[in-house]
């Protein structure tokens, strides 16, 4: 999740309050303070609030939350007379584009840094790592409108950011760090997207890299912002960037985007609207606010809100990406009201608690095994075929493998418990004998959970007779009639192994573990073991 660095001097200026009340209240709007330093604080914001991914956006929210300035933030948008054309050629590759011009910036290293991290965080969150959107901010004084967004041949050359000589777009994808990182997004494309000016100077190669020509510096006062992508979320990203810049006093101007003989003007910063009823708010939150109070809480959260009888008309700022449904507004009302003001109350309807029959069975098995002097252990269900089959002297059988294991140790989900018990013994070689342990729990067979019980006993005199008694008493305690037949399980010693049958179904095995298996696990004392399925 994005961590935003809030420099105190900047934050205090933008909010118009001292840093201490701001830092105290920030967690209550939905954030985690990661670190507080002398000059700045690092704060983590939730991924559904990209409008808070900049100090400017945080300041806007905190002014409302602290009551310094509430209600909808209004941003004037003047026409810029700058236009850009989307050529048909780029539509199959990356069809969506929104643009704006922002003038009158006073940038310093800190605010440039903030702008860069805002872009990166938007690329990550809204942009799904640039797949859905990518943003370019350009020094407009270096280029000449009108602009064009088109697809060009991979041999097209320009000087990319961070380099000082021309490279072809193909070379950028192969050699430029950003090219290497994001080339996969353009995989399969025969031509690549490009934004250029009237003289074919390159502004950017979306979603990979900007041109060096239009790089933003401290001298930059006027910028051209473009957001390309594959769906309508490009508009949201543009709104978040330009309103953040406007928070520093810059002026937003619109750009005309021509495509297929039609044209639209962006950005569109007009709020969307929703109607809330007093009753839906109060019933969801369990409190009793009137329409006026609800409107005030919404204004605190920087919505426009007008109470009309039992409903509230809400105007949602164009930078809020998280309002999909009325309940999203109700959460903001709760935040505005203050989570600490809610009085917890248990639900009224009486109900009766009930355990799950499988858990009851497992508890029973634990009781039996503990009564027999076995210690319970818990282990991972993820394992690997080497331990699960090879070390047990058993042929590799069908296993539930995971597709991208994190290590060689965890490539599949267990279908039996015994190898885990053997591993535990091998980790406890130094511990006093006799050792008797068991595990009861889930394994996976044919994609379904199955419960099994397994136990092992190791000491110098462990033998078949001991484990047979154990198996017998477990089954007797469970009230199960069983028979045993000779087993051919190679994990056990021939002549000292048996299968457990219940109504002719094989449910498990017990006996003396084969010396080869004992040695495989680095042990030397005799080990007797059993494992059975629980139904």
């Amino acid at each position, binding site marked *: 999740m994005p961590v935003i660095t809030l420099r105190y001097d900047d934050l205090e200026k933008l909010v118009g309050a001292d840093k201490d009340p701001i830092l105290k209240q920030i*967690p209550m*709007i*939905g954030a985690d303070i990661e670190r507080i330093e002398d000059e700045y604080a690092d704060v983590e914001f*939730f*991924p559904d609030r990209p409008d808070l991914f900049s100090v400017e956006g945080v300041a806007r929210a905190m002014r409302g939350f602290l009551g310094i300035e509430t209600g909808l933030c209004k941003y004037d948008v003047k026409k810029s007379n700058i236009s850009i054309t989307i050529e048909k050629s780029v539509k199959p590759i990356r069809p969506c584009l929104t643009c704006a011009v922002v003038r009158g910036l006073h940038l310093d290293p800190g605010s440039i840094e903030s702008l860069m991290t805002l872009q990166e965080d938007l690329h990550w969150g809204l942009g799904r790592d640039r*797949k*859905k959107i990518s943003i370019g901010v350009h020094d407009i004084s270096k280029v000449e409108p009108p602009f064009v967004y088109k697809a060009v041949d991979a041999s097209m050359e320009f000087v990319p950011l961070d380099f000082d000589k021309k490279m072809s777009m193909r070379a950028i994808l192969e050699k430029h760090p950003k090219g290497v990182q994001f080339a996969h997004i353009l995989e399969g494309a025969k031509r690549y997207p490009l934004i250029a000016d009237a003289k074919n100077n390159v502004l950017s190669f979306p979603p990979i890299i900007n041109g060096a020509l239009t790089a933003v510096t401290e001298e930059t006062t006027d910028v051209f912002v473009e957001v390309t992508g594959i*769906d*309508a*979320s490009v508009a949201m990203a543009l709104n978040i960037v330009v309103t953040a810049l406007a928070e520093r006093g810059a002026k937003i101007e619109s750009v005309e985007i021509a495509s297929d003989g039609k044209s639209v003007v962006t950005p569109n910063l007009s709020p969307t609207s929703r109607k809330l009823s007093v009753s839906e708010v109060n*019933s*969801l*939150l*369990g409190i009793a606010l009137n329409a006026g109070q609800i409107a005030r809480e919404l204004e605190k959260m920087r919505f426009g809100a007008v109470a009309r009888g039992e409903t509230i008309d809400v105007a949602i700022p164009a930078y809020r990406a998280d309002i*999909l*449904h009325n*309940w999203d507004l109700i959460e903001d009302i*709760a*935040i505005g009201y203050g*989570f600490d003001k*809610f009085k*917890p*109350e*248990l*639900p009224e*309807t009486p*109900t*009766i*608690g*009930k*355990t*799950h029959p*499988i*858990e009851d069975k497992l*508890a029973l098995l*634990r009781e039996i095994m*503990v*009564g*027999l*002097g076995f*210690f*319970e*252990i*818990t282990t*991972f269900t*993820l394992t690997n075929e080497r331990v699960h089959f090879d070390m047990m002297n058993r042929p590799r059988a069908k296993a539930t493998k*995971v*597709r*991208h294991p*994190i290590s060689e140790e*965890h490539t599949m*989900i267990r279908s039996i418990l015994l190898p885990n018990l053997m591993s*535990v013994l091998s*980790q*406890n070689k130094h511990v*006093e004998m006799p050792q008797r342990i068991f595990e009861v729990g*889930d394994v*996976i067979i044919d*994609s379904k*959970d199955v419960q099994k019980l397994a136990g092992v006993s190791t000491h110098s005199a462990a033998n078949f007779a001991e484990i047979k008694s154990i198996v017998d008493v477990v089954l007797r305690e469970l009230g199960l009639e069983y028979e045993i037949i000779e087993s051919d399980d190679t994990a056990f010693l021939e002549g000292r192994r048996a299968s457990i049958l219940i109504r002719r179904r094989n449910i498990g095995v017990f006996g003396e573990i084969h010396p080869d298996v004992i040695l495989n696990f680095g042990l030397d004392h005799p080990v007797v073991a059993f494992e059975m399925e629980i139904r």
Partner: protein
Amino acid sequence: MASPNKPSALTANEKRVLLALSKIKSADLQKLAIASGLQVDAAMQVAFLLAKKGLANIVEEMLALYSLTPEGELHARQGLPEQRILAYTKDKPITLSELKKAFADKEISIALGWLRRKGLASIRKKDKKIIIEPFKTREKDLQEEILRYLLAHQPEDLASYSSATVQELLGRDLIRCTERTSRLIAITNEGRKLVRKGIEIEEDVGQLTPDLIRSGEWKKKCLRPYDIHAPSMRIFAAKKHPYQRLLDEMRQIFLEMGFEEIRGDIIQTSFWNFDALFQPQDHPAREMQDTFYLDSKGELPGEYVRNVKDVHEHGGDIGSTGWGGHWSKELAKANVLRTHTTTLTIRHLAENPNPPVKAFCIGRVYRREAIDATHLPEFEQLEGVVMDEGVSFRNLLGCLAEFYHRMGFADVRFRPGYFPYTEPSVEPEVHVPELGWIELGGAGIFRREVTAPLGIKHPVLAWGLGVSRLAMLRLGLRDLRDLYNPDIDWLRRYPISQLSDGKNE
């Protein structure tokens, strides 16, 4: 203190040991055992009892014990080189070159020095020949005597031998010395007085037997008292895993609060794990680097697919915008190892859409995380839901506060949170004196985009709590891996009571 000792107050074994001591005055345990006819550990027990009664003294002293080195053992069997050479001379002068025919150079060079030092032979030069001539009268070889003694008795102390000779043998690397604490038991004056009064040994009884009880014989016998302070053998009580005990404690709390326990499969379709919970199909949490995918695909529940697709693509008919874009049935079929137990509660609600529903479960969940002290690829999650007409956000806080209070956390607070499938969302925190406020899970009210497509009409309060953090706090663990890599010794030593005492510490 007046002496309470009377011969009749002594057990038979005590009498035996006291009598033995009165004869041998003082002895170490081995000797005492032999003299009294008892086993060594029994003799020790009795010696301590006698000491407590003031009849014997136990003095601990460091004892130097000697044993043979491999070379020493060889010489103890064959004789020292100098003695073997003497024997070879048959008391007649012999030249070195003759000697060299029968002995190795090394042995000869050792032997010559000692022949001279021990005054066993003269060594002189004559006509460029070295002649060895044994003296007629020779002292007995003390070194060899010690070697032979050790061969029969080692390890043994050599207090009765000349310390100079012992030092010589140590210097020759034929014996070595180890130190051991030895207990020397001696009779006291009081003990002697008692013995003088006359001690008669009659059989006393260690173990009460059915025969003794039935026959009434036990009344006549002397039942040997135990030294109640003598150390007993350490044994261990088998138990269920402390972690399981903690999980059961949590289960108990929810059962008492009227919740029904549910269970479900580890392998789930992406549909139930993600889509039914309104997680967009391009959500980062669904990617390969966070979720364990399997090669298999599962069946989709036909009755819900249409609704879920609608709500993802355009919000359905509940006044939501949805996520936009295209919702793929194929992606929803991909099987995963469940990443949260919410997949079980949502299925349970879909199958039981009529209020009230109060359900919980504790189950293993899987995340594609590299293993370290605080991250594991699998761990337990505790999940709970309440679905009922008119339940509210305050009821959600009520359930959470009640649970944490019952777990022993007095201070609970709530902060805004974010989870893709709840709105409002909340992060409960509890106060732990030495750690401050710690986050113990996430909660919220299921979004309408989650409940409506499944036919659930009333609000659903939901929470998922990471149990492992709680387990580390309560079990005093620093490394999560310890929960799943059992140290048998730790399990044996971990007292059952510690868990209940460990509350909120």
